């Protein structure tokens, strides 16, 4: 059976052709890729995402037999484990990647996986390190009491420095944000530097929280938010603020952050944690 010809190959109506070309031209921001990488526990790299993808070759390479170039951001680097919407908190051994090492080091504990595959089956698939009761409607909530094993969050470094995500109060989806540039992902070194700096900044907050120092985390967050007005890591910043405030017993602020997370970032990985915070702190 011969392949049908595509619209673009056979003279589709001009309008239709324009639509298809526009769709093909759309690119995620470099931040978006970095966030997906972080979500699977892989080290965040600055830019060169297209080049690296080509260098990486096929996904069939096993065990480092394929040489992969992975740019790293300076020497300050840590893995964030995905959690939040995936079922509460998980204490993960965060490994600082050595400055010179080109290879990412896997976290010492496994990551939670599986986004919910069926509606309704939200986070009951994943049990966290802290055995948490599963409420029928809410996600399993890891107790926020323990600075001993503070929650880790996925850091997503991101962003198109020129595109903040608008926050729409009052619920519902935010209007499509200009987060992703229409053109090719940022490849200029200036964007890379900004991204790198942003990663470092938000990572300070994450590290503080991970180290059981929520007050310090809040301070780091303030620094981050002051410097990076256009925040690619807005969901993560909100998440960290929520957890830090919850740890400190600043319930009203924790709730406010949780509500804003749910309203503005309904599809983020942190929604389960946000709901948990709200249900535990009425």
């Amino acid at each position, binding site marked *: 059976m011969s392949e049908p010809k595509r619209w673009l190959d056979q003279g589709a109506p001009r309008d239709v052709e324009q639509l298809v070309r526009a769709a093909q031209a759309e690119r995620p921001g470099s931040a*978006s890729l970095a966030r997906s990488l972080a979500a699977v526990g892989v080290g965040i790299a600055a830019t060169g995402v297209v080049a690296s993808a080509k260098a990486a070759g096929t996904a069939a390479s096993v065990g480092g037999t394929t040489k992969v170039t992975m740019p790293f951001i300076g020497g300050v680097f840590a893995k964030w484990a995905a959690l939040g919407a995936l079922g509460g908190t998980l204490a993960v051994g965060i490994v600082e990647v050595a400055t010179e090492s080109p290879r990412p080091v896997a976290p010492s504990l496994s990551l939670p996986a599986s986004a919910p*595959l069926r509606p309704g089956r939200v986070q009951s698939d*994943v049990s966290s390190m802290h055995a948490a009761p599963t409420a029928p409607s809410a996600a399993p909530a890891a107790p926020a009491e323990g600075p001993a094993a503070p929650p880790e969050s996925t850091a997503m470094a991101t962003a198109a420095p020129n595109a903040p995500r608008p926050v729409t109060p009052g619920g519902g989806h935010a209007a499509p944000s200009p987060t992703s540039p229409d053109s090719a992902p940022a490849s200029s070194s200036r964007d890379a530097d900004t991204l790198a700096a942003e990663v470092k900044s938000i990572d300070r907050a994450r590290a503080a929280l991970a180290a059981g120092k929520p007050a310090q985390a809040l301070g780091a967050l303030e620094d981050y938010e002051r410097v990076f007005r256009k925040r690619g890591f807005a969901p993560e910043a909100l998440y960290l603020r929520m957890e830090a405030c919850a740890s400190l017993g600043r319930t009203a602020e924790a709730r406010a952050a949780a509500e804003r997370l749910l309203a503005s970032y309904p599809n983020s990985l942190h929604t389960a944690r946000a709901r948990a915070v709200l249900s535990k702190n009425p």
Partner: protein
Amino acid sequence: MIGHRPPGVSPWVYLDASPAPIDSTVALPAMSREPVRVEAFVREHHAFVWRVLRRSGLAPADADDAAQRVFITAAARLDIIAPGSERAFLYRAAARVASNAHRAARRRRETSGLEESDEPADLSAPDDLLDQRRARALLDRVLGELSEDLRAIIILFEIEGFRSSEIAEALGIPTGTVASRLRRARVEVEQRVARYRDRQPQRRGLP
């Protein structure tokens, strides 16, 4: 052999089947054993997944979030995705995640009673090729009006360049069905685009 699934088993079976609960003591093989492979996988397919999510009706930032979910799912299943079937698998995962996101949004609207502000799509036909954002808004509006089956065909065949056999695998349909579905989908899209175009009283910029 890693990466092989039994012949005759579609990759999406593994996606649909309810997974055993994954707890933290079960090391997710790919992620912890083969970080290089996982990273390469994400890098190679991220833009594709993101575009699919966009054409499935998610705003750019929501698509960012949804892509994370897709890759977490895929990374956990990396060992059972047969080489060559990655995009089929990822498409299924993305369609699921998008569908869940929409479902959750509808629930939120119902329970909160708040009207979601649909950003008013500027549906006037784009006069110049550079006005891509408007073009995509129109495309997304039209795609949103199609059934999921027809939308999938347009996304995979026309936009993402899948072969018919890839589409058959991704959607779990016979190859012959791909062609007939494609014909229907094209007619739908062309008609709707023409309708939107004809609605506009005048075209911008013309003397």
